[in-house]
């Protein structure tokens, strides 16, 4: 337990003597994956003045450490959720981190995926190495900032804290998108910024309404008081505003005009992080709100409607897309719509399906954006790419098959889960959503395999030379993720069981409250 | 192309042999009856290909229709040489036409009969002085009956046909055999008229061999000339050739496709 000392020094832990000390230590260490990258991000610039190599290594090291801590926490503490009061201030007054399996899973995913898509890794063959060297520390700092904020989003148990992490993630992502300094990326960033900032404004208004109604922003406490105070239109309005605010990053339908532009202009790895990771964490926040605070069926319906619209517009637009990044961007919108639909299903099934489809999309879309690093041109230019990069093309086909939902693969079981869930819901809106999913799947298969076939066509003479195969690192990452997909597909039964346990835990409101407030606390004495 | 001068001159024209029976006479009485029956049937069923090259054709419709009605004699018109027994040449034949006539004649199945109608087929008639017509038909193919006249009336045509029928029934109308037996002679005349590279698509020599109609004068200088430049005319026989089976070992350079 080498970590005991710094943790103790930094935070003066709230030692509850009833608990096993080691467990508490490990549990409290969960704060580190948020704090360490933040510190490292601020240290980055000075460090780069001292040693460039050290600065380069700092980010990955911190992330690896974070991943190790989270994994450790998960293994040591076991399946039960736990909460950590930051600075020792207990729940309603202080800020808490709540770590159940879902949160830990996504926190871990943040570390791992940021590491896998670390902007500085493996991208050795840069033309302007000098400019890259100049930019590297700033970019790495932003990436660390993003990782920190995203981890915070996953763990935080306080709405305003979430808002702050969300803003932090937004600022980091603005910076990352225009990190390579092209004019079009800056324009896209500005547009993205306006959308995001105005969304934050609306979210802030939503938070204000929430606070006005309940007098607290702690999620556990909100969960306790929500049934009395947040029924009716006022509560729903708050949810709607929060949905709009957080929906910007979650790529929900009317709030995602920035998506194709940003993904078409940003570096592919940044796109991979934004599309794969950040969007899931934003969705996670919405789901937390939905489960704990806004339990009205109307709230779910709102999410469902946005999801359906997202699925339809995303997939149809992707059908028309003529370049690879935008095709992936639109496809990502469609998939996130599917996530929204899945989470809008009642009960454990919904959470299970939603988590599964979110993870599925996280794995696949990140890997695809990784492949798009070099295949960033028009679809026509991809003709014959399989000749130069047979492995990458094969992986693309594998991912495409799973996205479409071809039976033995994981994607099929997820679609089945959603289908069963929607059918059991049985309302006309549910059936409409089902129809939309089916329609969108057909469209999706068509455009994905249009690309796949193009990859395997004999190459056109002058294009063969222009098209470089994806970098070795990206292919390797795609391999790794593809292997994950295959493993999950093979071990589908245990995987689903594990996710079901997770979903049950996530859906248990009382557990959340009990975990955050170990003794029942009187409210507003 | 061989020049016309190089074509050997044919020998003196021989008279058309009539009534020469091939092979030994059949002694079996049933066979004789059978032969009789066949000859009778042949004489009573004549399909006629009329090659209407000249004005004589005008006299055929009356011969066929209600006034004279050839069909009561078992004669009816046919359109393809394969089906026909009689080749009816009605009038003058130009050199160009004669080529077609010979081709058509060779394509007919034996026993086949040639009838020349009008003077033009006999001796050129009013086209005697024309550079472009063949004067004597039986220089180029054996003719069974000539019906002279310019033009012969339908009665004469019917009478001529009756004569042919009688010849067939009695077994005397076998001028067609002469074409096989003395092919060299006819070919020589044809070559003189059409040039040395003259060839039809029918392999008469092979046919003569196949049907035992080969005679001493079938081959000669002219057929030798023909064989120098003749396109091969062997029939396409069915064959089952599987190269993969034949050369299993030398597989490296084989390709079953044509050429």
């Amino acid at each position, binding site marked *: 337990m080498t970590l005991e000392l710094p943790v103790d020094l930094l935070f003066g832990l709230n030692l509850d003597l009833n608990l096993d000390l080691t467990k508490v230590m490990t549990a409290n260490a969960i704060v580190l994956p948020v704090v360490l990258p933040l510190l490292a991000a601020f240290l980055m610039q000075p460090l780069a003045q001292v040693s460039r190599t050290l600065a380069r290594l700092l980010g990955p090291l911190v992330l690896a450490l974070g991943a190790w801590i989270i994994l450790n926490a998960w293994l040591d503490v076991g399946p039960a959720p736990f909460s950590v009061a930051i600075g020792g201030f207990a729940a309603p007054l202080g800020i808490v981190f709540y770590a159940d399996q879902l949160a830990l899973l996504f926190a871990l995913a943040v570390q791992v995926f940021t590491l896998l898509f670390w902007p500085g890794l493996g991208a050795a063959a840069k033309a302007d190495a000098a400019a890259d060297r100049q930019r590297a520390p700033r970019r790495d700092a932003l990436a660390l900032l993003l990782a920190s904020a995203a981890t915070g989003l996953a763990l935080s148990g306080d709405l305003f804290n979430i808002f702050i992490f969300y803003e932090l993630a937004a600022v980091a992502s603005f910076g990352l998108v225009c990190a390579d300094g092209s004019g079009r990326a800056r324009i896209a960033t500005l547009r993205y910024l306006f959308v995001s900032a105005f969304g934050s404004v609306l979210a802030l208004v939503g938070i204000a309404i929430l606070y006005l109604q309940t007098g607290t922003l702690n999620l556990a406490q909100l969960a306790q008081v929500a049934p009395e105070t947040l029924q009716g239109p006022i509560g729903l309005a708050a949810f709607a505003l929060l949905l709009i605010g957080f929906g910007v990053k979650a790529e929900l339908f009317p709030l995602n005009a920035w998506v194709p532009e940003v993904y078409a202009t940003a570096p592919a790895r940044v796109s991979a992080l934004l599309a794969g990771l950040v969007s899931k964490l934003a969705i996670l926040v919405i789901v937390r709100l939905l489960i704990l605070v806004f339990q009205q069926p109307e709230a779910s319906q709102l999410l469902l409607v946005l999801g359906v619209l997202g699925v339809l517009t995303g997939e149809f637009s992707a059908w028309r897309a003529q370049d690879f990044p935008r095709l992936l961007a639109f496809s990502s919108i469609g998939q996130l719509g599917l996530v929204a639909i899945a989470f809008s299903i009642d009960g454990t099934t919904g959470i299970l399906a939603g988590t599964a489809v979110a993870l599925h999309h996280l794995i696949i879309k990140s890997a695809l954006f990784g492949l798009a690093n070099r295949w960033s041109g028009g679809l026509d230019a991809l003709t014959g790419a399989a000749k130069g990069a047979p492995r990458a093309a094969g992986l693309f086909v594998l991912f495409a098959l799973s996205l479409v939902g071809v*039976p033995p693969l994981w994607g099929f079981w997820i679609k089945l889960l959603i289908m069963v869930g929607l059918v059991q819901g049985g309302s006309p809106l549910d059936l409409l959503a089902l129809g939309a999913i089916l329609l969108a799947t057909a469209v999706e298969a068509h455009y994905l*395999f249009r690309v796949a076939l193009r990859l395997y066509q004999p190459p056109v003479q002058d294009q063969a030379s222009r098209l470089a195969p994806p970098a070795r690192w990206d292919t390797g990452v795609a391999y790794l993720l593809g292997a994950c997909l295959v493993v999950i597909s093979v071990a589908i039964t245990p995987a689903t069981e594990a996710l079901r346990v997770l979903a049950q835990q996530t859906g248990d409101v009382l557990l959340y409250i009990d975990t955050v407030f170990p003794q029942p606390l009187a409210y507003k004495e | 192309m061989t020049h016309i001068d190089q074509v050997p001159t044919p020998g003196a024209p021989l008279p058309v042999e009539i009534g020469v029976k091939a092979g030994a006479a059949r002694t079996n009485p049933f066979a004789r009856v059978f032969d009789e029956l066949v000859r009778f049937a042949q004489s009573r069923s004549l399909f006629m290909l009329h090659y209407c090259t000249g004005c004589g054709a005008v006299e055929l419709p009356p011969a066929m229709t209600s006034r004279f009605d050839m069909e009561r004699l078992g004669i009816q018109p046919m359109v393809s040489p394969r089906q026909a027994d009689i080749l009816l040449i009605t009038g003058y034949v130009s050199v160009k036409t004669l080529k077609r006539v010979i081709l058509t004649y060779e394509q007919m199945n034996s026993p086949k009969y040639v009838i020349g109608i009008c003077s033009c087929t006999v001796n050129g008639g009013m086209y005697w002085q024309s550079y472009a017509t063949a004067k004597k038909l039986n220089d180029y193919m054996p003719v069974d009956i000539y019906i002279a006249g310019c033009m012969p009336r339908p009665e004469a045509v019917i009478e001529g046909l009756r004569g042919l029928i009688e010849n067939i029934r009695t077994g005397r109308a076998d001028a067609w055999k002469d074409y096989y037996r003395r092919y060299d002679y006819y070919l020589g005349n044809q070559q003189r008229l059409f040039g040395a590279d003259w060839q039809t698509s029918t392999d008469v020599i092979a046919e003569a061999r196949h049907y035992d109609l080969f005679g001493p004068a079938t081959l000669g200088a002219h057929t030798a000339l023909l064989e120098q430049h003749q396109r091969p005319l062997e*029939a396409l026989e069915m064959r089952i050739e599987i190269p993969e089976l034949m050369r299993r070992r030398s597989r490296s350079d084989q390709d079953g496709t044509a050429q």
Partner: protein
Amino acid sequence: MATSPTTVVDQLLAGLHLPDGFDAVAGVIRESLAHVTNSAIWTRYGQQSLEWLIGMNPVDRLFMLSALTLLLMLLLGRLRSAGVLAVLLYGAQFAALLSTDTLFGAPVAAEVRITVADQSLHWSYDALSWFFAMITIGAAFVTAWYAAGSWMRRYREAGQSARAFHVALALNCFGMLLLVGSADLLSLFLGWELVSWASFLLMALVGGPGAQAALKYLAYAISGAMLLLGGIALIYSIGGSFEYGAVVAAIRGMTDVQVWTLLLLLGGGFAVKLGLLPFHLWQAAAYAEAPGAGSVFLGAISARMGLFGIIVFIVGMIGVSRLMTLEIPYTFMSSRELIAWIAALTIIVPTYTALQQHDARYLLAWHGIGQGGYMLLGLMVGDAVGSAGGLLHCFNYAITQAALLMAVFAVVHRTGTADLNQLGGLVTRMPLTFLVLLFGIISLAGLPPMAGFVSKWMVYRSLITEGMPLLFVAAVVGTLGTILSVYKLIHNIFLGQLRVEHQGVAEAPLSMLIPMLGLSALIFLAGFIPGPALSWVAQVQGQLGLPVVPWVLGGIVDPRGGLDMIWLVGILMAGFGVGALVFYGFGGRSRRVHQLDNYAGGHFLTADVHYQYSDNFYAGLMHLIGPWYRGAFRWLERSLAATLDLVSFGAEGLYRVAQPTLLMLAAAVAMLAWVF
């Protein structure tokens, strides 16, 4: 039980009930086997694996062998000998099938059940499954054989991957076996998707126009699969279970509107695969442009999977009698008549489209669509003879189409073209291939004495006895169109003038010839003695609860007009004997002449003159009916594509608003308005 190859063979021979004369043959087999079983390797490995294999459930055994085939092809497909290995493996699958008494008696029922992600997957093989499995494995077997030798060598030389081909074929076969054995909706869908994607793989293998066609197929197939999924969802929402038993109960309890919806969803899904009108446009190009041997397999069985679905759901579960009670509002048609008419139109329109084709592969592929209509039509009539005819046609058609496509691709193998205007006169060069094609076209056109006649006769007969005049006329008109186009096929390839460039063409290689000839023999035998096939069909009918056809060895016994093919074929052969006697016995000697010795109105023919009538073969007919069906149903496809494009354009437009926050504000206003 004591298991050695010898005992297995003994059991098999005993099961065959062979006459006594075969004892000697059996003895030879036994001795040679004893030789093998005495070897050391056998006693060490073979004995155990054989015992293990024999101890298995038949379905397990079949699946295991099929999966093994797939695995081995994946690992070893690159080897030169992979073709032979594939043949052996498919042969082993067929042997596994034989061990279930499918061919020689009542098939055994067996099942497999696994649980995946708390969904139970259930496979159960019954008479219907075995029937389709038999056709599938048989098709894979002959296809693998056809592809094993010379064909594959050429395929490799063209730069294609042999492994990909073998894997695609094995995957197809495996998927179909999973599909036909499915006993719940989930396993059905699983098999369905597997088959769809495996077919896609097989079609897209060679790229070029094949890939384009495959993409089009994919658009149709996935739409169909999604319809299917919708239907499955509907059933699940009502019955609450995927198991067939529960499904039947659920359907029984459904209202008419629900059954109609189900019919449209499921029927639509299956119809896409079967290529029923108006979903048939993908099929011809996709099947024709697949690599030769793959095309054979696809043509023989692939589209029948759609029919299988229809048999299971519409015939087996909903039932023809229920269909008859489903009236179409404001008409006097029932849904059964609707389906029957769709089937009839499926016969006519593609058949006459085939008549227009000038590519042999396309011609046959279009016919494949048309023949599917006969099967459905027979099933929709629903009486004993009609449904038996429809089912029997699956088998008969499979062997016919496989033989036909093999012959055509043998010609392509030798000449490099399937263009009917570029061929001719090949009968003298490829006589055995000609014979195969001849048998095939007689069967396809439904003329005696070949297999196709029996099944078509049964369909006609049932249409007459059930009093469906217009459908009968439609079926016969389809057959007439088939006669027209298959004559064009054989004429333009094999008859007429042999082109100069094809003078040196050789007969098809032996590896391709053997399966072709085997299938031809089967086509003739199945026409001569339809009894065995009818016995399978009768089992299937019993399984599905349909009236069972009264069959005998030679055909059907019925006081209202039966059919005895043994007599018919016998008298036909006798007639041919008489004809030969008249022709060869009473005629003069004939002499074969060169093809240039031909009547051309006195014209001199030379080898370079193309003296052949092949282009625009039925000019008179086309002049009349050409305008009727030119581009028929293509407008539907085009308008769908245009709609999709328009919708997509609109959707994309939403992402192209000049002000990024506009939609956000609008959404906020709309949501707040909805909330209050």
